[in-house]
């Protein structure tokens, strides 16, 4: 018997309408997420990487049901929640939480940290009112802050501490799933290391499942079991994170991997694949493989036919007509 995935997206798409384009006066559609299918098993961490603007945040918000899903289905613990109403989502909100990139912007500057952290308990009537201060103190300790920090305002904390507060708030009600959108991008490497360690500890202790969106491949490798690589709204390669980053098979993944700047001098570095060619627009995606305008391996087949995301026989999947050797 295979276990039920905690989260399953099937051909999930998200389209935005944008108006007032320079040329035609009519409104046009941006397909930010295009038929993405993925599963996240309980306890695992799925990393998501991809080009800026390829739809990672849009996908993350759809997975959290923070915005409408245009088409496709989304299941949480086997239940279809694609069209679930706000009322039906309310109990589920406890179980799925989001951590945002910019901790400063997601914390109301006029409220004390203790009040911010009490909200989840109050809104969901998760415990006795009298118990709340103890719960808040425990949460603060859990993320290596001090109970007396509850009296302070967000601006009195450093970037890393604010991110801890964001994490504490997401964890208040012991969710099953946490979607973290670039949670450490704004932090220096030492504080980043502290937060990554903290997220890993919390995963062990609370049995959490993460979807971890980031563009730092080393950080993604450190925290994830599997990774999904996105390009222009679609998943192009998935697999165990070590395999995907050490031996990428999709040409876009290979280009991404080769562009990582190495924090050392005088090390022989792999030749960087410079992506040239026209950047495709999500307003008007190219036919065939969406990467063909920039792919060094593109052929006539790639220009004509869109490759499907197919299992690669090694626990991953790949969408390419001419993948790199395994």
């Amino acid at each position, binding site marked *: 018997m295979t276990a039920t995935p905690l989260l399953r997206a099937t051909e999930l798409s998200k389209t935005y309408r944008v108006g007032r384009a320079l*040329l035609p006066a009519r409104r046009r559609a941006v397909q930010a997420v295009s038929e993405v299918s993925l599963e996240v098993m309980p306890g695992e961490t799925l990393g998501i990487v991809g080009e800026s603007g390829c739809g990672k945040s849009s996908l993350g918000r759809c997975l959290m049901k923070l915005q409408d899903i245009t088409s496709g289905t989304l299941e949480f613990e086997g239940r279809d929640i694609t069209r679930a109403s706000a009322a039906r989502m309310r109990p589920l909100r406890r179980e799925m939480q989001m951590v945002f990139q910019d901790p400063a912007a997601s914390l109301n500057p006029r409220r004390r940290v203790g009040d911010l952290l009490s909200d989840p308990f109050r809104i969901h009537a998760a415990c006795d009112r009298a118990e709340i201060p103890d719960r808040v103190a425990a949460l603060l300790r859990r993320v290596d802050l001090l109970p007396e920090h509850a009296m302070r305002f967000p601006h009195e904390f450093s970037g890393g501490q604010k991110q801890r507060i964001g994490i504490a708030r997401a964890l208040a009600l012991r969710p099953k799933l946490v979607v973290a959108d670039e949670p450490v991008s704004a932090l220096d490497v030492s504080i980043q290391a502290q937060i990554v360690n903290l997220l890993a500890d919390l995963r062990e202790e609370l049995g959490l499942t993460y979807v971890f969106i980031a563009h730092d491949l080393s950080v993604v490798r*450190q925290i994830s079991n599997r990774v999904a690589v996105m390009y222009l709204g679609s998943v192009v390669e998935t697999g165990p994170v070590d395999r995907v980053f050490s031996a990428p098979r999709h040409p876009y993944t290979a280009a991404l991997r080769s562009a990582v700047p190495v924090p*050392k001098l005088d090390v022989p570095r792999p030749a960087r694949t410079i992506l040239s060619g026209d950047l495709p627009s999500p307003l008007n995606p190219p036919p065939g493989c969406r990467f063909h305008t920039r792919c060094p391996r593109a052929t006539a087949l790639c220009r004509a036919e869109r490759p499907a995301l197919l299992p690669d026989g090694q626990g991953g999947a790949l969408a390419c007509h001419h993948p790199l050797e395994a």
Partner: protein
Amino acid sequence: MPAEPLLEVSGLTVSFRTEDGLVEAVRGISFAIAPGEIMGLVGESGSGKSQTLLALMGLITSPNAVLSGSVRFRGQELVGLGRRALDRIRGRDMAMIFQDPMTALTPVHTVGAQIVEQIRAHERISPRAARARAVELISAVGIPAPADVAGRYPHQLSGGMRQRAVIAMALSCNPALLIADEPTTALDVTVQAQILELIGRLRDEFGSAVILVTHDLGVVAEIADTVRVMYAGKVVEEGSKRDLFTAPQHPYAWGLFASIPPLEGARPARLSAIPGTPPRLSALPAGCAFRPRCAHAHAACAAMPALTGEGGHRAACVLSPARRAELLAAGEARS
């Protein structure tokens, strides 16, 4: 003989009066930048990198801020200069890319209109030509469908696209000094490579100098000539890129290098991280501010260490050079 500096900063301090007392965000920083030099500025979140840059641009406007020291650009003192005179320099001779792109963009105009305005503020050029230039710039920073994106509002772009729109704006006048606060933090590595190339081109073609704040030491290794490391409002180490990468001297810098997660080889069970939290800037310990977190702290660290060293490679730490070499050889900067 080194070229005359383009920018010379001496004794720069920035403090804020708060309920908590005086917060000393920048505590007496001095450095010079030559034309064509790319300086990487790294350091802990909250160590004063952004406040330093804002002070250079004359952009610290809080009524509670107290600023002192001197900032000379091409020999002209900028501290205390009037707003009109500053406006003539800013945007044209000195341009800044802000850490938060929304600081530079207003939500009510399209990004194209905002870039056009920036170009026309400093150059006599027709609206049409400015518009064409704006679209060109948007394309140069790697945004697809540039003409279309020019017609969109900031909230209709992804985080990385907004950041690139701000970069396009800063590059629009080929400034002699580009001040960039984490310009590529929101970008994926392929786009980052493209932006770094643009910055390199600005230097090669126009001889521009660049101050680049980043926490990505890979970016520093790639593009910087010189590096400064900040901790608690002070520069604690400075030198050439080679100095910093081959023989870092300050224990805080060691901690930074050790914290970088590896992209290859075995995954460590835990990342190495500097223990403890950054100091409160309103209650700094006497002497070396890194003392409460430093594994090598001893009695001598209670006095403020000066920035000392040979050949432009200097660190603010009381450990003897011999002792530091010993610790470094024993693997201090390795994870």
